[in-house]
């Protein structure tokens, strides 16, 4: 729309016609107070805090509902306006409990801030305040009515934003109250958006309430460890007896790819980190068969020595390595380097949740969509998957696009997924018809039988001027190829492939495959890697994950190194088949896999380390060490220590301090955590320059950027906390023959997150609260 010119507080401003005055002012740095206005949600004009004076208009006007107009003259602060706002605050405080000293929101409360600013300092009210008891609506959500200022943000974010519509308003007048639409409890997505958006302490969360004061926490921006969307999250951490404890997760930093959004996992699913049953001491299996705590040096030396013996005696090809979907890129990269260069094996794999190699092979100059692109896309075609459950961040972005920008959403699925409610067109297909659908979309009318509906669907898609095609793990191998090919026949297409966990994509990009090196380079073409690694690398593809366990069953797997994975539970492995395999496991908990190991190292999780992760859309982001648990070590450090214990040259493994690689200044390691001191001692003992550390993930990041061109993104942007979309999207490969399909979708829901999710009390309590109530026996 054309721009209009208007005057605010004496300044001439311009904004597109139709812009709300409050937004136009904000864009020019003039802040107008607002309780009920919230960008992107419907207008309420209920709180009357945003009142301003507009020339020639008799009454004060609400800036949140007034569009700017040519020649408009506005005053946003004056004694009259200040008095109006002050009176509104006074009115609110009349019935407010003023329990700020214990309120969760104390110190970060918009009502406190406004009271402070407009100075409702005199207590005029002497009558008895209206009171209602606090209510618990779900394991996550608590409501304290007297604190509520009825701004209706929670109602709108739940309905308009989440499309859940779990909250409503009951009664009228001073009896008005926010209430769950399901009588006395919530059966919702438990995202906590309502709690986060509440300007006061009326909605509080089961995980955080009455735990701390906001100013007692440090706030660290990092990335969620759960699904593959990679939402930016801010963790509030506080010193505890055994390190730094996470007390809160929120998305106050709205600069991330997730904008306003976090789901239950990102917001509350951090609590696994604080559990008492975390491993905090290395365990070594005794001749008696028992796992017994030992010192770090003893455990590392023992594991290193044993791995070395087995490698030397039986050969690297008898050793297997299983990596993680949740470790950093640097750790995954280092792990494969360790496997190939130190253990001498290509038997390396991870729990694959999407066929990224097939995607990489099929991409031929098509562009890959960032998660950011979804909110602004003109049209989206969603094939398979159920983003509401498996990619809540993506679902949010799509809903936002549809709601605020009129995005067209096309959904084809074998289930009635919730996003069909936003769809311009929804095509229900059979579970095994996804490949046929692509053939049909590409023009073969005989591929699908129910033609009428499908034809309209196809015509509509073909009529779009630009489109993002996003697909789930229903598509693998040649289906992915066919899909990408179909995509390339349409104008302005972007594609995205959905994998399940925080760094599933990174694990794939970093070469946790028996046949592919980082950047999907086939192992046969390993020459330049060998040169860089200063070692000869095995050139034959190794065993994939399932083959490794088969080999173990046949007594052919001498050793297995499992980092941050629980394949025994995930793949239902018979423990007996691993009897003759020496197992080293790194994990947070004594999982089904760790329980079978000979050596168990207590590992740090993604919230307790620094490095980078790549979401399933190819958005690269930094994770920052927020928390710390005494007695655990980052996987990066453990891999380095193990390699050194095996006799590897640490400078070869982590190319720190040469080739102009950056020195570690300690930022990567939490300064308060004692990690830096610990590393200093180790470095001195190994006659290494204390300022340059092999424990610095950035030393490896340099190498990644050299060898995997897609990761060559501007470092400064990354360091300043911005997500960077991978340069050319996926790295293209010349496809190495037909590969075995070992994709195993995790089928997580909103309330599960693989093995890790089982250790989240919040998530388990939601699941328990959903179980059908058992009727008492008598």
């Amino acid at each position, binding site marked *: 729309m054309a721009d209009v010119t208007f005057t605010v507080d004496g300044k001439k401003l311009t904004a597109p016609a139709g812009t709300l005055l409050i937004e136009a002012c904000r864009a020019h740095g003039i802040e107008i107070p607002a309780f009920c206005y919230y960008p992107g949600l419907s207008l309420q004009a209920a709180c*009357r805090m945003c009142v301003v004076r507009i020339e020639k208009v008799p009454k004060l006007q609400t800036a949140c509902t007034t569009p700017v107009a040519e020649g408009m003259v506005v005053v946003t602060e004056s004694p009259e306006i200040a008095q109006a706002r002050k*009176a509104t605050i006074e*009115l609110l405080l009349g019935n407010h409990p003023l329990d700020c000293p214990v309120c969760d929101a104390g110190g970060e409360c918009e009502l406190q801030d406004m009271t402070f600013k407009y100075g409702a300092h005199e207590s005029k009210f002497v*009558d008895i305040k209206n009171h209602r008891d606090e209510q618990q609506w779900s394991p996550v959500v608590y409501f304290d009515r007297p604190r509520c200022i009825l701004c209706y943000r929670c109602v709108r974010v739940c309905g308009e934003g989440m499309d859940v519509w779990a909250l409503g308003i009951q009664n009228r007048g001073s009896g008005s109250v926010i209430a769950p639409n399901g009588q006395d409890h919530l059966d919702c997505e438990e995202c906590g958006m309502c709690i986060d958006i509440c300007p006061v302490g009326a909605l509080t969360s089961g995980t955080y309430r009455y735990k701390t004061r906001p100013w007692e926490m440090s706030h660290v921006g990092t990335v969620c460890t759960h699904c593959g969307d990679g939402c930016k999250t801010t963790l509030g951490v506080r010193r505890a007896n055994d390190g730094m404890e996470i007390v809160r997760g929120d998305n106050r930093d709205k600069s991330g790819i997730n904008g306003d959004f976090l789901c239950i996992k990102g917001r509350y699913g951090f609590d696994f980190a604080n559990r008492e049953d975390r491993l905090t001491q290395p365990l070594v299996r005794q001749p008696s068969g028992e796992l017994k705590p030992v010192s770090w040096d003893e455990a590392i030396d023992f594991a290193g020595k044993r791995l070395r013996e087995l490698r030397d005696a039986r050969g690297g090809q008898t050793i297997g390595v299983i990596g993680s979907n949740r470790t950093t890129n640097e750790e995954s990269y280092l792990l494969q380097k360790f496997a190939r260069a130190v253990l001498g094996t290509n038997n390396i794999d991870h729990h694959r949740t999407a066929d990224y190699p097939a995607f990489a092979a099929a991409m031929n100059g098509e562009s890959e969509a960032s998660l950011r692109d979804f909110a602004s896309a003109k049209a989206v075609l969603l094939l398979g998957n159920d983003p509401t459950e498996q990619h809540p961040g993506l679902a949010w972005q799509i809903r936002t696009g549809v709601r605020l920008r009129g995005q067209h959403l096309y959904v084809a699925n074998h289930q009635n997924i919730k996003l069909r409610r936003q769809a311009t067109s929804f095509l229900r297909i059979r579970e095994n018809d996804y490949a046929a659908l692509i053939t049909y979309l590409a023009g073969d009318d005989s591929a699908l039988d129910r033609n009428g509906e499908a034809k309209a669907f196809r015509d509509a898609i073909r009529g779009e001027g630009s489109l993002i095609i996003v697909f789930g793990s229903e598509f693998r191998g040649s289906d992915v190829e066919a899909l990408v090919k179909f995509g390339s026949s349409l104008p302005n297409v972007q594609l995205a492939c959905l994998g399940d966990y925080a760094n599933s994509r990174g694990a794939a990009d970093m070469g946790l495959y028996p046949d592919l090196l980082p950047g999907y380079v086939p192992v046969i073409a390993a020459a330049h890697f060998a040169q860089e690694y200063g070692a000869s690398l095995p050139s034959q593809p190794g065993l994939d994950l399932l083959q490794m366990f088969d080999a173990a069953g046949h007594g052919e797997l001498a050793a297995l190194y499992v980092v941050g994975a629980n394949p025994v539970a995930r793949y239902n492995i018979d423990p007996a088949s691993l009897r003759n395999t020496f197992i080293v496991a790194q994990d947070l908990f004594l999982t089904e896999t760790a329980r079978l190991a000979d050596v168990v190292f207590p590992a740090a999780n993604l919230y307790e380390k620094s490095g980078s992760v790549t979401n399933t859309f190819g958005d690269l982001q930094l994770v920052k060490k927020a928390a710390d648990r005494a007695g655990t070590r980052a996987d990066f450090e453990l891999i380095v220590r193990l390699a050194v214990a095996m006799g590897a040259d640490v400078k070869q493994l982590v190319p720190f301090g040469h080739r102009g690689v950056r020195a570690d200044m300690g930022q990567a390691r939490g300064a308060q955590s004692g990690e830096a001191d610990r590393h200093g001692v180790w470095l001195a003992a190994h006659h290494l320059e204390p300022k340059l550390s092999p424990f610095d993930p950035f030393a490896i990041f340099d190498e990644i950027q050299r060898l995997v061109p897609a990761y060559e993104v501007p470092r400064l942007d990354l360091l300043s906390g911005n997500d960077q979309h991978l340069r050319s999207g996926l790295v293209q490969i010349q496809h190495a023959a037909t590969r075995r399909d070992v994709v195993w979708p995790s089928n997580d829901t909103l309330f599960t997150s693989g093995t890790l999710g089982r250790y989240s009390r919040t998530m388990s309590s939601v699941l328990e609260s959903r179980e059908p109530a058992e009727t008492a026996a008598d």
Partner: protein
Amino acid sequence: MATLTTHPDCVPLVSYRFGKGATNIDKYLELDGYKSARKAMELGPDAIIAEMKTSNLRGRGGAGFPTGMKWSFVPKQSAKPKYVLVNGDESEPGTCKDRLIFEHDPHAVIEGVIIAALAIQAKMGFIYLRGEYRYLIEIMEKAVADAYARGFLGKKIFGSDFDLDVVVQTGAGAYEVGEESALMESLEGKRGIPRIRPPFPAVVGLYGGPTIINNAETIATVPHIFRIGAAEYAKLGTERNGGTRLFCLSGHLVRPGVYELPMGYNLKKMIYEVGGGIPNGKKLKAVVPGGSSTPVLTADEIDIGMDFDQVGKAGSMLGSGGVVVLDETVCMVEFALRTMKFYQHESCGWCIPCREGTDWLKKSLTRLHAGGGVDKDIDNIRYLAENMLGRTFCPLGDAAAMPTIAFVKKFRKEFEDHLEGRGCPKHRAAEPEPALV
């Protein structure tokens, strides 16, 4: 008090058929019924609106907005259907005229809807009745059914090419849904809270379509304008205030009731002659001239003409035509409290100043009246009311604030008399001092 009463000064125009059995459609036809609709049909939209403007009819719902002008705001072309909406939510304390219309002359409402629909070319009309007016639903529904049966409603009404459907709907009992946009929300099946304006109903109204919404009396007046002619009608009243209106006289009067009098009729005369004066030889203390939301006038402020402009000049409002007369025995604090109880109960709660303000004022007035008042209460009450005024989302907040400010301003002494733990002097007088033992 909702009985029609008469006085020689009365001009029975809107009340022309009251008490004559006009609920019966044949009787209605006999009394010139549906002639105006036919006339309007011949005139066509532009001429209808021109007539309405000539009539100087101003909305009888309270604000007194010129009806012809309101109708002219409806765009001729609209992608969405247009609607005519009759506001029969009549809930303003002191007001009881619309119910007489529904009770005695339901077809006049229907005929008014037909003319309004012709004016803006709407195909659908709604008659929204106050939730508590259950007994009127039957009458209204029967009238609508009869009109359908005669071909006055439905397809091709009066044999023309024009289709019009009319539906009678009732609220759930809320003063606030008398506010036009809240009424539309309610009619659409939602919570009765007002909408953000602009857009105004004439452009975006019911179900998003252009809508004219008028008070039931306004609509029922329309056929009479066409019956006697717009210029004739205008002449009955004063400048810019055409015609007559149904004044609801209540309170301390010898002959309370609903009287149809010309616009501009003198208030003092209305009280002393039409209403028969104050009973039992008591003196007049104050008059609420236009329903509970209009600022009170003292006994020496009532020598004014009752039209929108003159009452406005006197510092109050003509409002909905509910004249409440208070004699010298009335405790103004109690009256203020009674008024505030109503608004506190009826506030929809959407916006802060009204929701919190009415609640706070009610609590303060209750305490003050009961003898628990402290010095600062009186200023506080006025401060609160003044800070609600003009700041709320819809005019209900103003409706609560305006009378309160007037009570404190004009009867401050009575408020002060309640202080120092004494409570209401009236109640004190009623209870004898405890005897000394």
